[in-house]
């Protein structure tokens, strides 16, 4: 393989990897604060993609404009899923009945419900959004860079930075961080932990609202696309250290480049096998993640 193809693969990998990182942000945030792995994470992304698609197909809204709707919509969905479905578990846990897989099971239930509601509504067909930006590229040093992917990549960086800043400097952000460190202490110091959880979950999903819309211009959608994104997100946060925002982006970049370069050598399906293989290898060798403290 020549240098040009390789550098093209690396750049493409970095772009899509940044987006992976952005998609994984919510998973990492929710875990960091609530210690819950959201099995339905990918399903919420899929939901956002369908929202964006629907707005385009019915109203002709450009996916980038649909962000104005998908972000708040996903925030509300997340807020209520946590408030209605997951919070009973936390209330029970306070009574010291701790079942570590319960949260996973609950969110697996959410995954089934969301995926199949969308399947019911839209059918199993592959759908895609045709907008001009899909095919637009800019050239940097003679290499074509797909504009839609570049925008997704930049959005991931910006969102990660903004999220870090917000967590540090806003009142709610501080409450979220305090709760992440010690739920009981936070509760004693007057923080409404339930609300913090609701907002955290909502926020984690709102980020998916953004990336769902940013993905549709160059990613065709099916109702079962969520699970693979969810698993990839989990891999990303494991790579970058679970609960860490910069780690999430870094993990995403790593996965993106790995996938992109690997697919230069093997077929696309084998590449899927490789990323699952990478997932297993990372978990077995460094369960705390590459960046995490072992």
């Amino acid at each position: 393989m020549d240098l040009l193809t390789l550098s093209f693969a690396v750049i493409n990998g970095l772009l899509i990897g940044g987006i992976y990182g952005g998609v994984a942000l919510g998973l990492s945030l929710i875990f960091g604060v609530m210690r819950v792995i959201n099995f339905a994470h990918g399903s919420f992304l899929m939901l956002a993609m369908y929202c964006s698609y629907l707005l385009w197909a019915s109203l002709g809204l450009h996916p980038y404009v649909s962000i104005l709707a998908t972000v708040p919509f996903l925030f509300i969905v997340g807020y209520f899923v946590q408030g209605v479905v997951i919070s009973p578990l936390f209330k029970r846990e306070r009574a010291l009945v701790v079942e570590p897989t319960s949260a996973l099971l609950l969110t697996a239930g959410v995954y089934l419900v969301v995926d199949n509601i969308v399947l019911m509504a839209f059918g199993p067909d592959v759908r895609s959004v045709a907008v001009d930006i899909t095919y637009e590229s800019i050239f940097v040093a003679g290499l074509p860079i797909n504009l839609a992917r570049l925008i997704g990549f930049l959005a991931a960086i910006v969102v990660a930075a903004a999220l870090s800043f917000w967590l540090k400097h806003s009142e709610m952000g501080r409450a979220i961080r305090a709760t992440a460190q010690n739920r009981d202490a936070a509760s004693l110091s007057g923080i409404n932990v339930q609300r913090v959880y609701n907002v955290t979950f909502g926020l984690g999903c709102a980020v998916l609202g953004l990336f769902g819309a940013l993905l549709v211009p160059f990613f065709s959608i099916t109702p079962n696309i969520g699970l693979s994104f969810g698993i990839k997100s989990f891999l990303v946060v494991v790579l970058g250290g679970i609960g860490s925002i910069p780690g999430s982006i870094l993990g995403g970049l790593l996965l993106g480049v790995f996938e992109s370069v690997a697919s230069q050598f093997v077929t696309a399906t084998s590449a899927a096998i490789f990323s699952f293989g990478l997932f297993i290898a990372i978990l077995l060798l460094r369960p705390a993640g590459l960046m995490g403290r072992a």
Partner: protein
Amino acid sequence: MRHTLTLLLGGPLLVLALAIPLFVTDSYILHSIAMVLFFAYMASSWNFVCGYVGQLSLGHSAFAGVAGYVTVLLFTQLGVTPWLGMLAGGAFAALLSVPVGYATFRLKGPYFTLTTIAFAEILRIWLENTDDFLGIPLKGAQGLTVPPVGGSSFLAFQFDGKVPYYYIILAMLVGVMAATALMERSRLGFYLKAIRGDRDGAEALGVDPTRYSLTALAISAFLTGLGGAYYAQLFRYINPERNMGIDLSIDMAIMTIVGGQGTILGPTLGALLLHPIGEMVRATIGGSFLGLHLILYGLMLILAVIYFPKGIIVPLQRLLDGRARKSASRKAAAKTDALEGKGQ
């Protein structure tokens, strides 16, 4: 208590199950009931390790699929009777489970679950994209069919009516429950529950968690494999998506969890409740609403985790225990009421 429930519920259920083909003659209905038993069997096999050790595997379908393929290939390529093929397939699944389990049982919670998915998906994707492996015709996503031998043949595991299939899966289900009951009372059963309760505590009492989890997993994989082989024989067809996709794993897990993990009857109870619901929805309105039954499964799972975290077997048990004790407690209650009345 637990054993009284098993007998109280299991006894009549078994008699009923044995009698069903006598008065159900419609082959579609009998087939549907056999499918309920099939899912009860699969859930029970999953429960054998996951329910007792408290880990959520969503990769068990790989064991079913692999064993199914082994059975079908042995039959079509070498003419080996599926009865032997089933055992070979189960053994193959058990063998496969050892390295997988060795790697995954060190992980906990979601890490374990997602790794089991990754293993199963690797296998499924590979199979879907492999038409021929070392001269073995796997036929990729298209899958394999079992050629009919014509008429009923016990050796070929092919029968005209549904009745033989029904009794075979019933026997398998009774078998897996008996195996579970034996395991529960053995050292293995105690150790698995100890690992589930407190891994460090178990280690300090001489339990090597990996070793015992692996033993249970290998048995569970073997049992799951037998089920997968049965399924392939029943439909005379096998493909990667249906026989080893994640949906099958999810079904096994949900039925067990809704019914009651770590119990002998729980998985069967879950299958008895969920599969008919799923079937009815699919048969009536499901045609126009793809996936509706999975929505119901998801909702049931959510409700069970919130309201019956140990499965619906628990309230059922309480109901039965309560009835047994009712007369005794009523007398006692009357007494206390009388006493309190006096005090006032």
